[in-house]
């Protein structure tokens, strides 16, 4: 997995004779995503052994697809959480953008690319507003985005029903040029007998870019800093408001991407799409090593958290159990991860 590679840059620093053998192992063990990696392997092995279809290429195709859209959001939400904020509107945003494009094209006859651009601008504007409200008022983002969440949920239902008379988009495939964005967001390729959906590639791309930004760029440094100690960050000249507003826009932008992936993979979106998923994203981020208090976490970890979710989601089906066990499993995972993360944080913050 990508986790060990992330620690590689240390190689350029002058080595110290006191940091000798075993340091690579201990460094890897200190990474925030280690717990999620171990859990992902355990879940995979468990379902691969107990069910017949799980480890086949068609089985993998299903759980990878399930993990991918959750994973994109989890990575964006993880960045925001490292920056010390929450976004509860992230789930409803995926439905909102998909519905917006659906309504604008099927009902108003707008060009499909133009509709997608408008939806993106709308999403970024809502993200900007979330960030601006949080920074200007000093209110917890939990409350601000809870408000946005309900507003979006209301619009998704009421406005869509008022405009098209129903709560699901229909006739997407008849929209002119539907094939172009479909190829980009909704198509799939066959790899060793299993379908790999476009969303899986987007998931990998988003995770890679987020990891790069977090670990290698100035902005990444600022994200850790504003989440870890906002006042200190401000004192040394980190643009706190710009960084945080940017993070809210990123999670909204990811909501748009997932909205497009859902719309063009299934050619429909319902009014309730994404509602209830916002907590899944947060759970994935926490399972991946993000602290609820901010300042610590990883994008790869959040992606692994989503992988665990996707595998369990489908594995329970293959095992023939009641699907509702998934919720119980997620709860246990969340509690376990929070306890583990707290222990990690205490160790990291402890003064000698």
């Amino acid at each position: 997995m990508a986790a060990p590679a992330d620690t590689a840059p240390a190689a350029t620093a002058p080595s110290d004779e006191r940091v000798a053998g075993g340091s690579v192992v201990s460094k890897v063990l200190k990474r925030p995503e280690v717990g999620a990696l171990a859990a992902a392997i355990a879940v995979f092995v468990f379902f691969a052994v107990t069910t017949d279809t799980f480890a086949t290429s068609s089985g993998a195709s299903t759980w990878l697809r399930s993990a991918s859209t959750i994973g994109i959001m989890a990575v964006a939400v993880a960045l925001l959480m490292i920056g010390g904020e929450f976004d509860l509107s992230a789930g409803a945003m995926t439905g909102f953008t998909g519905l917006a494009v659906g309504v604008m094209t099927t009902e108003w006859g707008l060009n499909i690319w133009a509709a997608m651009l408008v939806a993106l601008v709308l999403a970024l504007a809502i993200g900007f507003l979330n960030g601006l409200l949080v920074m200007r008022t000093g209110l917890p983002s939990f409350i601000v985005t809870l408000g946005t969440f309900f507003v979006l949920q209301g619009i998704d239902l009421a406005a869509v029903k008022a405009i098209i008379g129903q709560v699901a988009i229909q006739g997407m495939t008849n929209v002119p040029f539907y094939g172009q964005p479909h190829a980009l967001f909704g198509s799939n390729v066959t790899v060793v007998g299993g379908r790999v959906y476009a969303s899986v590639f987007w998931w990998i791309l988003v995770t890679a870019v987020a990891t790069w930004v977090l670990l290698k760029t100035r902005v990444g440094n600022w994200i850790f800093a504003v989440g870890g100690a906002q006042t200190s960050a401000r004192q040394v000249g980190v643009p706190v408001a710009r960084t945080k507003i940017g993070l809210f826009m990123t999670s909204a932008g990811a909501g748009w991407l997932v909205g497009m992936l859902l719309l063009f993979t299934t050619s429909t979106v319902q009014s309730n799409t994404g509602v209830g998923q916002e907590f899944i994203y947060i759970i994935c981020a926490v399972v991946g090593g993000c602290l609820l208090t901010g300042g610590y976490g990883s994008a790869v970890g959040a992606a692994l958290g989503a992988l665990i979710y996707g595998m369990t989601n489908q594995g329970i089906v293959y095992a023939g159990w009641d699907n509702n066990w998934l919720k119980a499993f997620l709860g246990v995972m969340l509690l376990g991860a929070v306890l583990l993360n707290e222990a990690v944080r205490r160790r990291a913050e402890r003064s000698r």
Partner: protein
Amino acid sequence: MTSPEPIIEVSDIGKRYGNIIALADVSTSVRPGEVTCVLGDNGAGKSTFIKILAGAHEHSDGRLVVDGVDRRFSSPREALALGIATVYQDLAVVPLMPVWRNFFLGSEPTKGWGPLRRMDVGFMKRTTKSELSAMGIDLRDVDQPIGTLSGGERQCVAIARAVYFGARVLILDEPTAALGVKQSGVVLRYIARARDRGLGVVFITHNPHHAYPVGDRFMLLRRGRSMGDFPKSEITLQELTARMAGGSELEALSHELAAELGSDSELAKTLESEVKGLRT
């Protein structure tokens, strides 16, 4: 020892907030390679004085001369531009972030361009390590979270950071206030190290036992007024302590110090002998 030209010279400086006189008639100087200690009890005007030097407050009376030029700071940025850096008590570090990320936070060097513009991680790690070892801190691993360092070491990282980013004068706001005897000794050593590198240091403290071993010049404040500005040659620790605190307070202080002893650091030994000197 002949003193070099002062970087900062304040004469009869004062600060009034409306009709409240927070500070009046304070004079002292800060020279490269010297430590100027500002001593005073709580409420003596120490914070007002450093805020003037740091540029957080404008003075209302007297003169503030930097490099021979009359100055009047209206923002910390102006002071910083002249190489006057302030290390506040909270240190402005992010505990969970590695030392090297903290060291460069807000001023990260980059390489590459466009979307590939990235932090020069190798340079950052090397520089952090070499700058810290120049200050006498030998870290095993600059990748460890800064929260795992001791209070004294964290103070030192903040000092080293200010030095690296061009400070000529360091203003240290009570750097030993929250620390035990041993950790205070560590910080005092770094103050001496910064002085030896040619920096002018303004060391604010209420503890004459911390000030005396490293200080070259002592300026005493009480109730917003200067109680005098002495070079080390003109004042002993006993006189310094006596001027700062009255008789009963002095007695309490010596008890407190006696209770703190038992550590084997250099500072503790110095303190022990000084306390004995006080009692006799």
